[in-house]
Structures are given as C-alpha cells and as structure tokens.
C-alpha cells in the first residue's frame, strides 16, 4: 500500500476530482438546468402578479396579457457558466476576509475548507438559485464544525459585520451538506508543504536523509548539493532564511491562488504545494525533486530509471503552476471588479424568486403541517408566497436604485480590514 492508494480512497479523489473537460461540462449542465428553472419561476411569479391585477381590474384583454408575458420572457437573461464562476470566486475571496474579522481570526485551514465547500456546492448549484452571499457564512460555520475549530452559532453570527442572524447562517446548512454529498473532508496542501520545508531545513543543517532508492547519498552530499544550487529569485542572507522565505511565499499562494482557482478539482494536494513551491523558489523546489527522484542523469550520464515518472510529474507541475500563476484577486483588479458589478446586476434580474429567503422559507415549512404542502392548499400557499416575494423584489428594486453603485448592498467587510 502506498500513499497514492490512500489518497485514492478519499472522497476528495472519489467525488471531487475532475478533468478539465468534465469540470466544464458539469458546470454547463448546472447552468442550463438552473436557467430553465429560473425562467419558469419568473414566469410563475409574473402570472401570479397578473392574476392579482386581473381580479382587481376585472376582465383583461387576452392580447395584452400575451404581450406582457412575451416581453417578460424575453427580458430574462441568465448568467453564463463563466459569469457564475466569477461570482463564486468573489465570494470565496470574501470568505477569506470574513474569517479574518474574527478575534482571533479563524485559522487559514478552516477558511480554506469553507472555500472548497463553496466551490464544490456551486458545481451542482447555480448562484441564480442560491445566492452565494447566503451560502458563504454557512459554509464557514460548517467548516468550523468539521475542522474542529468550534465556535457557537451565536458567537459566529455576532462576528459577521452587519445584522446577520443565527437563522440566516444556519438556514442553508442542510442544503449545503446535500450539495457536498455529505462529504466533509477536504485534503489541503498545507501539511505537505510543512513536511517539505522541515525536510529542507534538516538537509541544510546536515541532517538530511536520502530517499530509500538512493542509499549511497550521505547527509553531507545532500547538504553540499543544497548549498550549491542556483541563487534564489530574491537574495537572502542564509540558506535557512531562503527556505523560510520560500515557505512564506508558498503559503500565501496556497492560501490565495490555490483556493480561488480549480486547483483542488484538478490536482492532488502534493502536486498543488509543489507547484506553488516552484513558483516561490524554482531552484530550491527542483533540488527537493532531485533528492526525491534523483536527477535526470547520474554522474556517469546514465538516464535515471525514474525519468519517465519525473517528466510526467514535471508536466503536471508546470500546468498546475501556470494555473496558480494565472490568478489575480478580483478586488485588486479594477477591470475584473467592473465586470463583477455587471454580473451582479445581471444576477439581480435572474435570481430565482422562490429561493430568496431561505431562513424565512424554513420557518414557514416548520410551522406548517407537512401534509398541507402536498395538498391543493399547498399550491395556494406557494402562489401567495410567490406574490409576496414579487412585492418584496419590487420594494428592493426601489431601494436598489438609491444605492446603484453598491451592487451587493452594504460592504460585508469594511475597507480597513481589507488592507
């Protein structure tokens, strides 16, 4: 049994690993299904609105009725899968910031788990159905439970800027867990990085151990090898300083780029941290790779028997590095922010009206006898509900006009804490 076999038994591998095309097609399907449902829901909402108008104003002319309907249907322009992805990414960045507002801040690992929960959830759910704003806090709270960083719900809700209630946080819990297919374990690249760094430090101090298939190497050989590698991208005073620097840069990449891109869906934790390490200090990372797999040729010019594995790995790491490097935070990029605002406005018009207030919906569900939902009375309830939501939307719309430039409503995290 090797480590790979153990990883292959994990839910992260079994359920949450994809190829690029399979990931793309899954997102396209989710988007198509959600768009269809949003259109249907908006149609229902519109019809409900008309039927109330009808009863108030007597018999309407059938033609005008048709006209309104056609116009409405044409107007609903849904998000594309790419736009959905941008939106989800924005809320992943927000999750990182939200965790920072707590005292003490929620550990990076817990925040990273929450971000992966969000990303996994939105593979089979659309932001048009469930707004990420309402799922995000719940994802972070669930992560505190699954990652043994327990805070009470009350304390957690109090820590969120604004007037978020405990009900708002917990309402989507089951929905989220369903979307996660009840798998809560996320395998992160952080621990692997710590191991690699410890190993390099040991080598630097002359206490390194050779790989099992390279028994002829001594601790001195390894130490000498490490001291003779190419200089770092940024000059450093000593080897331990250099390792510490690379460690820090890699951690930052794992905290940001690795979380906000599809890295977890496409690569294993060890591939991810190694790719980030390559970006932080290439000669250092390549040295560690040589220690593990031996150089491409030995001193007699013989080709390393692990050459094939090595070149395959090299290819994967290059791809993963490129993915990590492609990431720039939305909030620091005016062009991306502009496009985000456009998407948010668009979402406002194609948000499924029947799923807007999850906490309220849950309260209604629990107070109503469950039999009524299935009977004819249930239809009446759901229609009046749709109507209520339509009114609410109209009210909100009026409010929105007043705060036009702030598409998400009040800022979740104040500007000060962002820096």
């Amino acid at each position, binding site marked *: 049994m090797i480590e790979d076999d153990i990883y292959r038994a994990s839910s992260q*591998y079994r359920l949450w690993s994809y190829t690029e095309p399979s990931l793309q097609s*899954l997102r396209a*399907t989710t988007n198509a299904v959600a768009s269809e449902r949003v259109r249907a829901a908006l149609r229902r909402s519109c019809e409900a609105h008309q039927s109330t108008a009808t009863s108030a104003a007597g018999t309407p002319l059938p033609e005008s009725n048709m006209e309104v309907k056609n116009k409405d249907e044409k107007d609903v322009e849904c998000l594309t899968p790419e736009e959905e992805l941008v939106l989800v990414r924005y809320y992943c960045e927000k999750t990182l910031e939200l965790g920072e507002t707590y005292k003490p801040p929620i550990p990076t690992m817990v925040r990273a788990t929450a971000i992966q929960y969000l990303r996994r959830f939105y593979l089979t759910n659309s932001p048009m159905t469930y707004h990420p704003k309402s799922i995000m806090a719940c994802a972070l709270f669930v992560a505190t439970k699954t990652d043994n960083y*327990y805070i009470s719900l009350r304390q957690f809700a109090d820590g969120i800027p604004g007037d978020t209630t405990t009900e708002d946080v917990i309402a989507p819990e089951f929905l989220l867990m369903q979307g996660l297919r009840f798998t*809560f374990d996320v395998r992160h690249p952080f621990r692997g990085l710590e191991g690699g760094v410890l190993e390099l430090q040991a080598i630097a101090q002359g206490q390194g151990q050779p790989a099992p298939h390279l028994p002829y190497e001594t601790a001195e050989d390894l130490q000498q090898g490490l001291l003779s590698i190419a200089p770092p991208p940024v000059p450093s005073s000593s080897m331990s300083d250099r390792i510490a620097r690379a460690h820090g840069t890699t951690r930052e990449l794992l905290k940001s780029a690795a979380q906000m891109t599809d890295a977890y869906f496409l690569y294993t934790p060890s591939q991810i941290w190694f790719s980030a390490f390559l970006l932080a200090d290439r000669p250092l990372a390549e040295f560690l790779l040589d220690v593990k797999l031996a150089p491409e040729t030995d001193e007699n010019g013989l080709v390393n028997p692990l050459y094939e594995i090595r070149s395959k790995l090299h290819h994967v790491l290059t791809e993963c590095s490129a993915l990590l490097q492609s990431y720039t935070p939305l909030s620091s990029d005016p062009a991306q922010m502009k496009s985000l605002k456009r998407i948010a406005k668009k979402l406002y018009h194609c948000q499924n009206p029947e799923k807007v207030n999850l906490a309220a919906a849950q309260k209604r569900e629990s107070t109503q006898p469950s039999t009524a939902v299935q009977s004819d009375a249930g239809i009446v309830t759901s229609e009046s509900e749709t109507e209520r939501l339509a009114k609410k939307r109209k009210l909100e719309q009026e409010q929105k006009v007043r705060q036009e430039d702030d598409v998400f409503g009040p800022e979740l995290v104040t500007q000060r804490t962002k820096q």
Partner: protein
Amino acid sequence: MALSPFGSRSPSMTVHSPNTAIRLRATAAQNSSTGTASAAVSKPVQNGDRELTEQLNIDVRERYVKDRKVGEGTYAVVYVGHLRHDPSSLVAIKKIKVNAEYKDGLAMDAVREVKYLQELKHPNVIALHDVFSSKDQNLSLVLEFLPGGDLEMLIKDSDIQYGVADIKAWMGMLARGVWWCHENFVLHRDIKPNNLLIASDGEVKLADFGLARSFADPLFNMTHQVITRWYRPPELLYGARQYSGAVDIWSMGMVFAELLLRVPFVAGNTDLDQTSKICEAFGTPTEENWPGVSKLPYYIATDKAHLVPLQGRDFFMRQFPTAGPVGADLLMSMCALDPRKRSTAVQCLRHNWWTIEPRPTKNEDLPRKSGGTKKMGDDLTRRGGELDEGMFKSAARQLDFGMK
C-alpha cells in the same frame, strides 16, 4: 496528472457517480416530462419546488426501505432495512435525532461520524453506504448491517468459550482497523468492546466515530475528555491536550486484556480512581519512566513510600498466562505508560505474536452468539464516550495485581 474519480464501494453509488453531469441531465429531463415511472416524480406539487441536489437526496432515500426499529437512544434511532430492489441486502439505518436544545445545526457527533466514515473504507471499519436527509431534515446514515453483536457480548457471556486463537483473530482485525484509521490521520478516541461490532461472517468492525478527529497539527490543542474511562490512557487522565494515535493503542491494549481476563482490567469508578488503578497495575508514572509527565495539568506526584515500580515483562506473563510470553510482550508494548514508548499500530501489526502458534481462528470458526441485531441497535444509538452503567457491575471483581 488530472485525476478522474471512479466508483466507490457503496452499493448505491450510482447517484454519487462521477458522471454527475449525465445524472443531472437525466434528472432535469425527468422534471420537465410528466408522469414518469419514478415514485418521487409522481408527486407533481413538490416536484416543481425541487432543486437537483434535493432530487439526488430523494433518489438515495428512495433506494432503501426501513423494516423495523432495533434500537433507540437519546441520540439516534436504528432500523434494519434493505435495498428496495433487493430485499436480501440488509442495511442498518441510523437516524440521528434532532436535539431541540442544540441550536447550532447538525450535532458534532453526527458531523464527525459522517466525515470520517466517508473516508475510511476498510474491512475492519463499519461501512457507510449512504447518507440522506428526510423531509424533517433529520440525517440518516445507511450503515453496514452487523448482526453478530459485539465483543462485549461475547466477553460477558459465560456460556461462550473462547481461546487464545480466537483472541488473536479478533485482536488482529481490531489492530488492522486501528492501523487504517491512523494511516488516514484519524484518531478514533472511543475504542472499547461494545464499539467493536461483528459481521455475519465473523469479521470485527470498528464502529462509532462520534468522537473521532483528525490528527491535530503540532502544538494545536485537543480535548482530553475522550475515550470511555476504563479504556482511557494515563496521558488523557492527566489532562494532556496534545496527543497521538498512542491513545487508541492504549484502548486496544485494554480490550486485549479484557478479552484475556473476561472482565475489564482497570475499571475505575471515577477519573481519579481510574488513574490510581492504572498506577497500581502498571506502575507509578514518574519523570524517570516518563520524561515530561509531571508537567501535565492533572499530574499528582506520589510520595516515595507509595511509588509502585514500573511493571516488567514477568508481571504481564504472570497476569496474562493465557496470552503466552510473546502475547504478553505485545500487550505490554500497548500498555507502556509513556505514550512515546507505546507501540504504534504498525509496530503492533509487525509483532511476532501474530505468526507464532496458535494461528488465529478462521472467521467462520469464531465463537458467535445470537441476538446480535438487537445489540447492534443498542450500540449504534449510544452517544460516544458513554459508559453503560452497570455494564460489569455483577462481573466486576477486585483484581489482585500480585502486589501484596
């Protein structure tokens, strides 16, 4: 290497198949057409409200039929059920009760149990086939059906005779299950005979992951209030907040001793009593035999007159003659007071006791007992760390450790 996930061992993983895209397409098609055969789709009112994830959940739920209740506790209800399409395929369905006082969503026990069982697929760990939620948002775990009862039942039944070859078989299965947990960086933290369930083929399965957690990062604190008292290692009794897989190994040693003696080896009435019984039995922990022990929060120094010297190999051989000298050596390595000196799961498995005579009994020849389904029901409804009061009251006797 772009990885693509492939099937799982769960019987109903078709829903959880990697081909979610196709699956979702099919669900969508079902939703838009009317009058399809599926029972779930035939309720038109609900169907319009249903999102895809809800539909997937319903599909899982519809796959099982509950037959009868076999256990009920404060925390859960357990049913025996079967796959709808195959009445011969039995499963245990554990429905977690919603705790009205707990307002923070799904309870931690359930979160832990689901989290770890989803990851740990091994012949000696109870299999989690599926998870679904019911209409009232109760969580149900579809678990492997284990009608053979548990090890506690066999230990306590004086009508059942078993020997060292049987113990070797059971301990081997336990050690492999624990090894798999540790290999996956999971601490079980509640190993005891009634969490060791027995399958119809005699295989022992580690169950109840309600107290489990992943290994903590170095310097990160964990709670010391885990593991049922009689199986709790000295470092936890002393309040250690940083510990390792060694805690589970101690529990394993206690189960081993109990299998040999047919009564719990050190059964304290309180935590303090447990500590003193451990000292009496194995020796008093001191800075000499356990460097650093005096710094643990609840460590109490014993005055010189009452110091019990650390027990050696001859003590274990005298106390557990049935194990034989090699078996006693393995037991001793599991019961080292200093957790750093205790064997790891791998070291236990490499011990030569497994390979010497007698060979472990084959599963089909292991002693068994009827009434196991009821026991499984009771075991699965218990909350982690609970001690069944009066469990050994009649059987417990004062043990003479040969000190006087």
